[in-house]
């Protein structure tokens, strides 16, 4: 079966939006939180080009020809330290948890406590030398990472996203928690054509606690102003489902109305019995001063609720994003607060994870990525400039933790004095993300990634056992 047929059949199987029967509630203390019956992949886009080498540096070495020394020397400026051995050694020892994998020793930034704990629990996979676009520009890089189509050019904006395709292949929906759904979520066209966007299969829930279209109930006075327009609009939208050509550009809005109206009521009812975790609620308040970006905590809160309603939403993929990683200057001051927002003690992931019922943890994997990595050398402004290759993080109980791919390739040393040296891509995104797809829905990889056949995987690396 080819990709188009696969996706079209998934659409034809219907029930994309059906509630899927009575919910099975979990046995956790979280009353009302339905059992998460299907695997869910949550994509977290770190737009701007996150420097994962800042998060995971190699062990410092005093051997001046070693990678551990030359890396630190090249990056001292972006760590905001002097380039003496003493300063570098001190920062390595004081600023990072020291961990190892095989022969490789690396650090985990100390502020990223939750990440360290997940690593120690064997639930973090660091996949290295991954590349999407060969371009170093943000918009094209993001476009490729969102679409999962390496052959997309910078003007190919109107294509489906790999999250949307995966959800469809898994006979479910993608749930976007950000204010504007990322193109990652865009479903393919109803014809199965992945090179255009359809309207079925994406649900937007930036605030799950305010998700419904207002509808007067049976006790509402019939003659009230609000009821008159609400009735007229509801009736009109339903009529358009029949009267408007499905190929019309306006039909998407008819679909949006239908889906929001349908889910809104059910989710509202479900969430009446699901307590919003207090810590998440507090972090997501717009005036919360501990978070640099309270909006991300709001997304995590919505993800929590969406998991509680995963049976209603038929959620197989979720999407979150956190921007502001373009660290050309003063990198340490710029991105470490971001990393704390994400991975710090009592911050987004930490409080989310503590609140999440155990049964849901067994079904959830986060895949965290940006559009590209940074250059190997710090620039003259305390930052790093655009590169191409980068790491991708997979986090979750189902993940078999470890380092996949050479974390610090020795060959990079020979390029340090060239202009604009960066991490060379050895593994195409199709391979890593494709493995995630197969975990969500067996055999879906080929349907989701059209360029998979031509994709590369780093020598000696296998993703066959990426998930347990």
């Amino acid at each position, binding site marked *: 079966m080819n990709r188009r047929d696969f996706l079209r059949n998934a659409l034809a199987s219907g029930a994309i939006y059906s509630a899927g029967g009575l919910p099975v509630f979990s046995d956790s203390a979280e009353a009302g939180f339905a059992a998460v019956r299907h695997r869910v992949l949550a994509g977290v886009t770190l737009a701007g080009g996150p420097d994962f080498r800042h998060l995971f540096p190699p062990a410092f070495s005093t051997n001046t020809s070693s990678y551990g020394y030359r890396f630190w020397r090249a990056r001292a400026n972006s760590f905001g330290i002097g380039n003496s051995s003493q300063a570098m050694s001190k920062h390595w020892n004081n600023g990072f948890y020291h961990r190892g994998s095989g022969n490789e020793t690396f650090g985990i930034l100390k502020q990223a406590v939750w990440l360290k704990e997940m690593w120690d629990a064997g639930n973090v996979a660091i996949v290295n030398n991954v590349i999407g676009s060969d371009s170093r520009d943000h918009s094209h890089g993001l476009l490729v990472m969102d679409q999962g189509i390496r052959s997309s050019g910078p*003007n190919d904006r*109107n294509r489906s996203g790999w999250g949307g395709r995966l959800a469809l292949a898994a006979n479910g929906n993608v749930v976007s928690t950000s204010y504007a759904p990322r193109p990652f979520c865009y479903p393919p066209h109803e014809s199965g054509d992945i090179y255009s966007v359809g309207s079925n299969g994406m649900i937007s829930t930036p605030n799950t606690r305010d998700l419904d279209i207002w509808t007067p109930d049976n006790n509402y006075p019939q003659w009230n102003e609000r009821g008159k327009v609400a*009735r*007229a609009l509801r009736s009109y939208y339903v009529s358009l489902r029949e009267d408007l050509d499905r190929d019309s550009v306006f039909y998407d809005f008819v679909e949006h109305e239908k889906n*929001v109206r349908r889910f809104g009521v059910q989710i509202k009812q479900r969430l009446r019995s699901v307590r919003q975790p207090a810590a998440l609620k507090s972090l997501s308040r717009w005036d919360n001063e501990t978070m640099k970006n309270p909006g991300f905590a709001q997304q995590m809160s919505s993800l929590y609720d969406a998991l509680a309603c995963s049976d209603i939403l038929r959620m197989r993929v979720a999407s979150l994003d956190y921007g502001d990683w373009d660290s050309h200057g003063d990198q340490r001051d710029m991105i470490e607060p971001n990393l704390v927002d994400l991975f710090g003690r009592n911050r987004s992931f930490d409080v989310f994870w503590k609140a999440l019922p155990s049964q849901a943890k067994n079904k959830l994997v986060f895949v965290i990525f940006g559009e590209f990595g940074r250059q190997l050398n710090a620039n003259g402004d305390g930052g790093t400039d655009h590169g191409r290759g980068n790491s991708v993080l997979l986090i979750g109980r189902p993940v078999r933790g470890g380092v996949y791919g050479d974390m610090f390739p020795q060959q990079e040393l020979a390029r340090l004095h060239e202009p*604009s040296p960066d991490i060379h891509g050895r593994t195409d995104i199709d391979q890593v993300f494709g493995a995630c797809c197969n975990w969500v829905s067996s055999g879906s990889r080929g349907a989701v990634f059209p360029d998979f056949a031509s994709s590369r995987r780093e020598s000696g690396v296998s993703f066959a056992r990426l998930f347990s």
Partner: protein
Amino acid sequence: MSTHLLLLLLCLVASAVEIAPARADTQVNLQIDRLTAGKFGRNFGRGNHSKVIAKFNGNGQHLLLHARSFDIDSFDEVRIRVNGESIGQLPLTKNRALSGSHLWIIPAAIQKAGPNKITFVLTNNDRSWGVQDLGLYSVGSSAARFGNWPNNRGLKIVRRAVLHLPTDFDAAQLSFSFYDIDNPREAVIRPSSGGKTIPPNTRDNDWGRSFVVEVPANTESIDISNLAASTSGKIWGFQLDGFYYGFPENHAGGFRALTRAEWGTAEVRRVLHTFAFGGRASETQIQRWSKMDPRHAITEMLNFDEHNLKLSPPSKLDRDAVHRQPGTLRGMTKYWSGNRGSNPVPRSSRNLIGSDWSLGIGWSQMAMARGLNPFRQKIGLWETNYHMAVNMNTNVDANQVITYYDKIMEQLENNTPYSRVLSDAATSAAIATQYNHGDSKWIRETQTCECNEDFAREYHQLFFGILGRDESHYHETVSIKNMAKALTDIRVLWNSRKNRFEPWPVWGSSDHHGGALEIQHASIGGVNARDKITTLSQISIEHPESQANLPIKIIGGLADDNLTEEKIAVIRNAWQSMRPKNLLGFLRAYAISDTFHSRDRVKYWTSIDRSMIFANKYYASNQEGYYDIWYANSYRRDQVDVFRPKHNVFGGQTGLEAARSPDIVRRVINDSTEHMYYFVRQHLETDGRKIQKNWTSIVPKSANGKYRVKDVAEWLWNQYIGDDLKHFNSVARAHVYALLGHQHDLLLILSERDINRVITERDLKHNPRIRRIVRSLAGQQLKLDSSKKASREEAHRRLGRAIAFIVATPFSFAQQGK
């Protein structure tokens, strides 16, 4: 022998001398931006030629040919051709005398890459003739400055020049600047088609700002005269900064404009919704434009003037005289936030407009204010929030943003070549602050750069669309690296007296890489960063990737979210054939083209688009907008703000993003239902003061002098949706007629017991009872101007309900080309 006979005899003798056949053609090589010495022709200097061939290498830009003719007796005696195409004739002179300075425009479209030929051909082989002072200049280049001023190392013209225009254009705009003009009696520009333009005054010994002269199709030449030359030897100078065909469709590779038959009210509304947030033009004005030649109508609809009173006429209800205020962001925010007695904005709202944190509200007020120009604000928004975005959520402050916005708009208003608009934007304090240029230094001692590649990359990518895809290694390792070095020693100083940063940077050279740098295969010199950026921008605009990508960014950003390969090719061709690049000319040509009005064009509205279209149609006067500032800026409820773009320098929320968000549909529908109070208000209220919501000043009456429901419904649909009723189907009509014509909605009218039923087109076609009711509703009168308060208020509520319905339909989220 009489004097006449003597003269005749002398002429015959002279002719006899000239009968000797002309020798072979002569050739001369011309260098662009240089005057060429030598006299050419017959019995002129040492020449004896019937044809002079002047060769030059085309640079793809409009050029000016300068020449003085000698002894030309008849109109068609010597023809001038460029690559075989006629550009005119040598002008008449007195016998054996030289003419003054004449200039001919050689359009880029008739030039070829590589060698080009200008030929001067004598049509009557027995005449003497001549040409001298041949010069070739790029339009807009500093070498193309002519006149009489101290140290003028270029072409000296003391008294007068005649500029000859090409013959094959419909209308054109010429952008001039003048030197040292003290009063209106010193110089004049007179097109041969009639009328005159007086250049604006300048500072002493300085060039003034560019201004535009528009000429119609029948203009053959333009006389440019120094009126004071004869009495005082007055110094003066002029420069042709730009020459713009009003309608590039006349030339290969341009857009095809709609014919008059293809142009109507639907097309006018489409343009207004896309480019002017719907505009404020009256229905009468829309009808008038629809009956004009589109090429003339568009010049009235879209211009960058601070005030466009046809597009946005003042309301009689207003006493604020916005149309007489400076229509700049600085001028209007100062006016609206200030405490002048004439300021109509309620006191508690003034801070909203004037404060740093809500500058976007000041912009919104401008986009919706009657008496300003919503097209100007639409483009201003796109330039400063999308194309060359700066973000007040970084360190950029309001003063810098205001300066940035106003400077860009001033240059667009002056028809400044687009490369110059972009280079001046790139050298603003707003950009310097956004990209933190202040930390970037070139260290001479170590020959190292304490700098980064942030703007070094985004200058190419965002401003010009140069991604370096065709030569990525060179782009990354040479152009960007060197651009980073060029962007050094740029400081935005703190003004402690004004307690703010200066709106323009200081360009130093001590911490700047002073030498020439190779960028885009050119050697870019300059003593500071500004010099280098200015020089580079002229090259960047011609870069093949810019030529391919920049027009797509413009059209994709403003007007089309569904660009096909076919449309992309047309848009690129039109842009590439335009030299120098001029945004207004490009947008006008596009807005009346079959590319814009094609069926497969789709523009999804951003949250800002929707809010501003609504505001332009909802508020009958500026006063109403002043009393409703929070609601007028409803886009903020979608987490969108002006001057705080969602994607930072990559721009604000796009139409596609908004369209892909079901949550925005939810919010819009809930606004129309759960929060519908805003639609049915009788009064707008701020500071405890109320004003009556006025409808009668804008809702047109039917032919019978009343407000017939059907007519009001159609007018409302066109106001808010703007599709000339294309999607106002029978079901939508039935609901709107009911909301306008009855105190209840259609479902309640039909049955109190089945209020959740769905009315379809089939019902309206086949159910006689429903048909009868709907027909009756359509014929009802809306009592907007009733003398009875209760009736009037009920009519207001009905109008509000109908609007609430219309703005929540699917058709309020996007626009289709046809």
